[in-house]
């Protein structure tokens, strides 16, 4: 790091295998150094760094002041002892940190790699690799430096890499060497390679590389496509050779990782401001006292000179005042004690350890505990308002599993009653030796169906085994490894494999599968590749019998349009199944086939060839050709793949949003995938009023869409307000829409969550019975949090916003920012899809800038690093996707659900503790220091201290530091499980209520009050008092001891009052501090010490002589009571008149404990339940249709396969794969734009909640939301019930109390009951009108909710009145 850098490079020249040549340029070696110090530089550099801190410099300055005898009002050691202590603690911490950095550097630098040196491969440490070396990489090895790919064992110089550590994308990428070098297969040839690369200087652009290779008198252009970057992992490639271009600190990885920005918490910033204010205050006091001194010296001091002559150099009062100012600066400096900073650090360190130690944040699956990587941000965890989350790997596990399917109208894979023990996992091995042992499926009827040879089932799995772009690798017989480009495809092919249709291998023209144990080779005639518009892919194969068949899988909406009309009935049934799957948050695909005659094939293949050869509009022509053949298909069925959510994600999101934290998902995924996950993790729900989709491609369209969304919100909430009062609009909507119920009932059930609706809904034919309510009721129903009070604070109802990356780019432009923030923040959920890492960071910055809120970013991939770094708090998921995110993060753990614990438990406590600590700390120092100020008026403003100088030295570091530290580390206001049960407890942190400027002034005022009492009570008492032996007590030393003792006792009593959680440690520290005070005082005042140092210990005998006097103790008692009693009374009254939620919870908790002592332990059980309930997708039923054709891969693999480029045996010529690859993507985007402008967002089947399923039950998570909402405002009364139980009890009440609906209403109900079945049609076909009425239904629902919320406090049930209202309106 301290290496002298050569002047910035203009261009880089590297000659292969020529170290001497490359040495000239002094390129950085591959040794990385992230450590800051070594043994010699540590002390000076560290001290230099520490004195850059203002506080430390300030204390150094004080120290220098104290060395001037005229000024020194205190001995030098009062400053140097604490300063030395602080500096050494920090130094030790820095040294430890740096030690670990050295260790990790060493570990990385000493990794082995194979370097080609003088024609032979030698093992070298990474740090010894030089620019210009050729190194050999083997499969699954990390790339050691930025390499130019020279050759590979794969044909055509292709190799596959995983770039997860760099950009977070887990899918494999293809890299290809320049053709001339790819022929240099073996080391011998490579050793003679002496090409020279001229390229750009080191930079941090991951996706760009520009250079030229000069070799044998010709030039070859180099692009990023030829580069292997440090941090990537070689996959699926036996070995490859690369030329080192950038090494060590010059690599793109290191250039990107830059110095971590030092994050400060808002409390830190506030503290710094306050410290500045205090300095100002200190100067003011100094000035006042200096002026006092000037006046005193002139009026009194000059006359008093016979006894106290002025110092020879100080012979006028003005100069004396000047000196007095500095003297007072010295003695009053303790208002900003140096121990403040070090104590804050210690507390934070303690909190960090508690995070590290938390077993409930330990994931046994990965064997990782949570880790607080930064120890300075803990209290900010208690103030988070916005969470920005990555999707893949964070919310989801990035594991796709084949979960359900529908074959020829028969559904398989339905999970049976969750009340019963879970069915056994199917064992495929006896049936199929090639089965993948990791595959999970529970429904044995499907296996039976395969075994009995059901034709449809066989065809279904045959399709799955043929129609894909997966590559297989068979290491040994039967040991198949599938290299799928997207996990979805992998899951499908694996499913087929397990059910007896094993994909074995492929060549460019054939696919070999093992069908029920029998190998069959199909001729692959064409791959009709996937793209974003087609949303489907097909293959055309000829089976051994010569029959040609097209197999197609794709999004149901598109596929159903292309079916043969005779499929109508099957389509309806399948469609029902698809709806169910979509409701479960599964990703669905419809499967179909078409038999082709030889003639048809010939004709089409001709047109296809033409299209393929076309130079202009090739894409369009190909698409048209595909369209032509994919017609009149026969439906086979549908698959449902579960994008497995991480455990507990929906619950976590629900709890966090109850805590008024807004969650934004920022993902690189497609809109469909993102929205789908949004639904399955309950961010989006079907009872949301509206989901806005912003996908405009121009500034204007984005602006318009945002405006429209806002207008709609205002409109809806206005309508709702109207509905609330007049009951007109909303209820009309409900009745008109016929949501399955009479108005009254809709009100009753809808408000309660609609759990009962299902009972009245006749189960549709052919579908399995509706799942019973999940057995463990969800712990905490999400209460729709009230929108924040923004400009749009009149918005009620729940909205969600989905915005696409390209629209986001416009929305983030300077003039749109505000508008975007305004709209997005009015929404409950925001999903940004297709965002780049940079955009992720920009979104975070945007919120930081506009909302002044604390943001938290959580992600697992390297693509999240930018956002993790720019957010106030970055959290890394230490899961599968490498460790880049973790390295950049402030906190890391392996499960998203731990976030609730991190924020609601640790964060809340940290914030609370830190605030209490700061309040007390400022208080105690003001109480301590201000006594000097008052004394100034009685001692001629001479900067005489009130206390003994040893007391001043030790007060902050010994007598009062530990109790407040113990409080700052261990205090708890409510037990951890309560913080999770009452997420509202989190709110004071967000609103910054516990420590702000107002609280600060209260503390200061209390401190000053205490100092007044501490000075004037002894003053009044002692000035006339005498010992019982007649000696006056008014001597300075007695006064000092009395005041100091009173001070220590008062602040100890105060800390005792502030401590809410008295552990053994608190007891030890509080009593220990008092004991310490007396012990040390007696020691300091002892004869022994005086005899040794007569000049230092003037107070000999004072403690003894003073503390034996009853008057002194009476004085101390009086002062203590005067200081404490008002505080006590104030707190009691505040508790009674304005109890905080935490007070109430704490109180209830205590009452509960008293009532039933043994219950204490059972709390853990309840909590355990909370954590373990994971019913992810099971909870949802009956909702909008969201078909998810969500291939995670890009198109183009079909072509790669057919061209045979990635086949070992193929010798087909290389095509311009790379260039096409990128251009087609742009085309796709362009076309997509067209597609979207044609269909209004609300009508696009993927996202809009379709009406027919609104009647289904609202997800149970939200069922009892209003109930809990009530219980949050009013304290829990039946202490024995945990909230879920409560909600279960309360829920039925409204329905039983509902009076029978009036005649017209019931009529409407009858009509409505019929309607759901009649309108049950594929969501994709839903007419636009439905969307409108849907909104009205939901208005109606929400209108009721509003009322429920209003009336929940009173005992009269809300619903009846609602029923009346509705019947009136009809």
């Amino acid at each position, binding site marked *: 790091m301290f290496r002298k850098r050569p002047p910035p490079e203009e261009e880089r020249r590297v000659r292969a295998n020529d170290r001497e040549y490359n040495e000239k340029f002094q390129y950085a070696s591959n040794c990385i150094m992230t450590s800051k110090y070594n043994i010699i530089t540590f002390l000076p550099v560290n001290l230099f760094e520490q004195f850059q801190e203002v506080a430390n410099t300030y204390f150094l300055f004080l120290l220098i002041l104290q060395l001037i005898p005229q000024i020194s009002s205190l001995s030098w050691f009062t400053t140097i002892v604490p300063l030395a202590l602080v500096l050494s603690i920090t130094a030790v911490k820095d040294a430890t940190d740096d030690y670990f950095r050295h260790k990790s550097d060493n570990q990385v630098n000493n990794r082995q790699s194979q370097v080609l040196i003088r024609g032979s491969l030698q093992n070298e440490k990474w740090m010894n690799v030089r620019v210009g070396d050729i190194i050999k990489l083997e499969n699954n090895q990390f790339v050691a430096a930025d390499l130019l790919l020279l050759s590979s064992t794969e044909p055509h110089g292709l190799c596959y890499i995983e770039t997860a550590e760099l950009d977070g994308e887990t899918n494999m990428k293809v890299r290809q060497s320049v053709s001339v070098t790819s022929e240099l297969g073996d080391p011998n040839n490579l050793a003679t390679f002496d090409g020279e690369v001229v390229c750009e200087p080191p930079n941090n652009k991951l996706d760009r590389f520009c250079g030229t290779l000069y070799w044998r008198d010709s030039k070859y252009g180099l692009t990023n496509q030829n580069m292997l970057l440090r941090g990537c992992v070689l996959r699926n490639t036996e070995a490859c050779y690369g030329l080192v271009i950038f090494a060590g600190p010059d690599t793109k990885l290191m250039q990107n990782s830059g110095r971590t920005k030092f994050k400060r918490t808002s409390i830190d910033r506030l503290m710094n401001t306050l410290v500045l204010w205090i300095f100002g205050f200190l100067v003011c006091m100094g000035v006042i006292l200096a002026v006092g001194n000037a006046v005193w010296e002139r009026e*009194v001091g000059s*006359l*008093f000179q*016979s*006894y*106290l002559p002025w*110092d*020879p150099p100080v012979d006028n009062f003005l100069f004396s005042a000047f000196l007095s100012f500095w003297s007072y600066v010295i003695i009053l400096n303790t208002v900003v004690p140096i121990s403040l900073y070090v104590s804050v650090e210690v507390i934070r360190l303690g909190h960090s*350890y508690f995070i590290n*130690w*938390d*077993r409930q944040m330990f994931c*046994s699956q990965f*064997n*990782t*505990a949570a880790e607080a990587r930064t120890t300075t941000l803990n209290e900010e965890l208690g103030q988070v308002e916005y969470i920005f989350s990555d999707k893949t790997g964070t919310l989801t596990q990035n594991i796709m599993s084949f979960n359900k399917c529908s074959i020829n109208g028969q559904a398989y894979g339905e999970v049976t009653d969750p009340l019963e023990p879970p069915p056994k996992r199917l064992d495929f091995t006896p049936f199929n030796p090639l089965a993948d042992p990791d595959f999970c499926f529970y429904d044995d009827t499907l296996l039976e169906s395969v075994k009995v040879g059901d034709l449809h089932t066989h065809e279904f799995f045959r399709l799955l085994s043929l129609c894909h772009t997966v590559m297989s690798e068979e290491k040994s017989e039967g040991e198949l490894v599938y290299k799928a480009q997207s996990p979805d495809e992998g899951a499908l092919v694996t499913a087929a494999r397990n059910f007896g249709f094993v994909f074995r291998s492929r060549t460019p023209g054939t696919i070999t599968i093992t069908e029920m144990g029998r190998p069959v080779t199909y001729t692959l005639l064409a791959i009709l590749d996937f793209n974003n518009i087609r949303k489907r892919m097909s293959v055309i194969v000829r089976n051994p019998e010569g029959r040609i068949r097209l197999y197609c899988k794709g999004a149901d909406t598109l596929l159903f349009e292309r079916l043969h009309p005779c499929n109508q009935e099957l389509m309806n049934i399948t469609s029902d199944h698809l709806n169910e799957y979509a409701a479960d948050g599964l990703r669905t695909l419809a499967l179909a086939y078409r038999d082709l005659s030889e003639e048809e094939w010939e004709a089409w293949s001709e047109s296809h060839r033409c299209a393929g050869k076309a130079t202009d509009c090739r894409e369009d022509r190909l698409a048209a050709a595909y369209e032509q053949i994919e017609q009149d298909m026969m439906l086979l069925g549908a698959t449902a793949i579960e994008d497995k959510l991480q455990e507990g994600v929906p619950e976590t999101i629900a709890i966090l949003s109850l805590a008024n934290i807004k969650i934004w998902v920022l993902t690189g995924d497609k809109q469909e995938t993102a929205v789908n996950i949004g639904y399955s993790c309950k961010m989006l729900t079907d009872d949301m009023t509206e989901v806005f989709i912003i996908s405009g491609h121009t500034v204007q369209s984005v602006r318009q869409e945002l405006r429209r969304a806002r207008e709609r919100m205002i409109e809806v909430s206005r309508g709702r307000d109207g509905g609330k009062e007049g009951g007109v609009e909303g209820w009309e909507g409900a009745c008109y829409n016929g949501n399955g119920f009479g108005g009254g009932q809709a009100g009753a059930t809808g408000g309660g969550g609609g759990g009962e609706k299902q009972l009245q809904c006749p189960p549709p034919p052919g579908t399995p019975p509706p799942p019973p309510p999940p057995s463990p009721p969800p712990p905490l129903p999400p209460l729709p949090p009230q929108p924040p009070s923004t400009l749009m604070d009149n918005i009620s109802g729940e909205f969600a916003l989905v915005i696409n990356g390209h629209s986001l780019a416009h929305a983030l432009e300077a003039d749109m920012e505000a508008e975007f923030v305004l709209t997005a923040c009015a929404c409950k959920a925001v999903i940004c899809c297709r965002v780049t890492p940079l955009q992720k960071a920009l979104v975070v910055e945007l919120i930081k800038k506009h909302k002044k809120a604390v943001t938290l970013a959580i992600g697992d991939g390297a693509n999240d690093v930018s956002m993790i770094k720019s957010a106030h708090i970055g959290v890394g998921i230490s899961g599968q996707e490498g460790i880049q995110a973790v390295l950049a993060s402030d906190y890391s753990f392996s499960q998203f659900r731990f976030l609730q614990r991190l924020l609601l438990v640790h964060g809340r406590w940290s914030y609370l503790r830190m605030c209490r600590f700061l309040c007390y700390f400022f208080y105690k120092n003001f109480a301590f220091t201000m006594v000097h100020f008052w004394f100034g008026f*009685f*001692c*001629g403003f001479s900067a005489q201290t009130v206390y003994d100088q040893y007391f001043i030295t030790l007060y902050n570091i010994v007598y009062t530091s530990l109790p407040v530290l113990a409080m700052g580390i*261990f205090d708890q206001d409510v037990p*951890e499980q309560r913080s999770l049960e009452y997420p509202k407890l989190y709110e004071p942190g967000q609103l910054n209520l516990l420590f702000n400027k107002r609280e600060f002034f209260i503390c200061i005022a209390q401190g000053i009050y205490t100092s007044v009492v501490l000075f004037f009570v002894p*003053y*009044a*008492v*002692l*000035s*006339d008092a*005498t010992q019982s032996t*007649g*000696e*006056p007590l*008014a*001597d*300075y030393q*007695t006064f000092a001891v009395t005041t100091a003792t009173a001070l220590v006792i008062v602040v100890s009593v105060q800390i005792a009052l502030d401590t*809410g*959680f*008295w552990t*053994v440690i*608190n007891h030890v520290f509080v009593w220990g501090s008092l004991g310490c005070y007396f012990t040390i005082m007696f020691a300091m005042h002892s004869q022994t010490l*005086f*005899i040794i140092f*007569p000049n230092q210990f*003037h107070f000999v005998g004072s403690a003894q002589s003073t503390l034996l*006097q*009853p*008057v002194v103790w*009476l004085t101390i008692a*009086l002062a203590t*009571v005067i200081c404490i*009693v008002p505080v*006590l*009374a104030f707190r*009691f*009254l505040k508790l*009674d008149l304005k109890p905080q939620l935490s007070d109430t919870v*704490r*109180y209830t908790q*205590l009452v509960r404990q008293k009532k039933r002592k043994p219950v204490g332990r059972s709390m853990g059980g309840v909590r355990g339940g909370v954590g373990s309930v994971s019913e992810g997708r099971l909870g949802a039923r009956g909702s909008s249709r969201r078909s998810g054709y969500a291939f995670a891969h890009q198109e183009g693999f079909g072509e790669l396969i057919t061209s045979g480029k990635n086949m070992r045996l193929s010798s087909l010529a290389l095509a311009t794969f790379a260039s096409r690859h990128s251009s087609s993507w742009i085309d796709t985007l362009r076309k997509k734009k067209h597609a979207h402008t044609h269909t209004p967002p609300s009508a696009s089947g993927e996202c809009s909640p379709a009406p027919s399923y609104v009647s289904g039950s609202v997800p149970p998570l939200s069922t009892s939301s209003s109930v809990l909402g009530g219980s949050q405002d009013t*304290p829990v009364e039946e202490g024995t019930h945990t909230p879920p139980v409560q909600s279960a009890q309360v829920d039925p009440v409204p329905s039983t109390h509902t009076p029978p609906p009036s005649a017209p209403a019931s009529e409407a109900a009858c009509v409505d009951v019929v309607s759901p079945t009649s309108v049950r049609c594929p969501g994709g076909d839903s007419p636009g009108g439905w969307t409108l009425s849907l909104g009205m239904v939901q208005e109606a629902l929400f209108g009721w909710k509003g009322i429920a919320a209003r009336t929940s406090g009173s005992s009269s049930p809300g619903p009846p009145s609602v029923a009346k209202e509705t019947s009136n309106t009809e």
Partner: protein
Amino acid sequence: MKEQQETANRPDNTAFTQQRLPAWQPMLSAGIVIPGFVIIGLAFIGIGIALFVTSQNIQVLERDYTGVENNSPCFKCSDPSTKNCVCKLDFSLDKLFEGPVFFYYGLSNYFQNYRKYGVSRDDRQLSGRLDNFQSPDEGCVPYQYDANNKPIVPCGSVANSLFNDTFKLYQIVNGARKLVPFDGKGIAWWTDHNVKYRNPSITPLKNAFNGTVKPTFWSKPAYELDPSDPANNGFVNQDFLVWMRRAALPDFRKLYRRITEGDYKNGLPAGNYSLEIAYNYPVLDFDGRKKVVFSNVSWMGGKNQFLGIAYLVIGSLCVVMSIVMLIVYAKFKFPDEE
């Protein structure tokens, strides 16, 4: 084995690491606070009454003898130019002044607590170290060396400004003056007399002071402060010790003598008294005041009205507060307290 590996990083399950330490969680509940206030209030009222009554029984007699007013007996002495002035302060007691009686002198507007005054001393010297006799501490400036560059012992402002008025009390018995014996022993702190201030262990004491000069304002050297008692000389002279224990506040009094002997063992009987003051100490130039105080003490020391009253006031306020809190509590109690 596998399981062990999987949980190798699992944090320890101790009450400490899991923040589950058993703890006492006090709460300011009505059941504690209100009775607490009542108890504190009553206790304070009780103590207050006791203090007040005790204090009322203490007799104090205070006389200013600065001599500012013309009719003051010491007026003539207040002129700094008069040397060796003696003035008589007469007073009479109409009842017995119960003993033991303590006799104090008091100074007002006198800043013994001024920082530079306070540090202007050499504690090594005062603890009898002979090195510091020859070279007193820097802090003693300007009373470190005299004009002839001879070290001053004891050095510094505090010692230099030693209070040097002396008093003799006579009871007028049938027109005759009867000397009331003063007891000057043990009026300083034990630690001061025995630990903090030591004379050099050289006999005679005078030799220790060779080569040094007495403080400028002193009339006699330190080893001759009390001619009547050789042990009461040097740095362990009681009057010197009393003076050296500097006062915390600008108005202070210091113990001069006890009256514990002879006929006056039980106090000063009613009658007329005459206090003979050798007026040496100038205070008028800085507007100071001098006074003498006779007082007796109780278990809690001298007269102290403030303490008793303060206790009574605070105690009453506590009781009042407890009533207020009770009312508030009755109105706004927690809903499930019943």
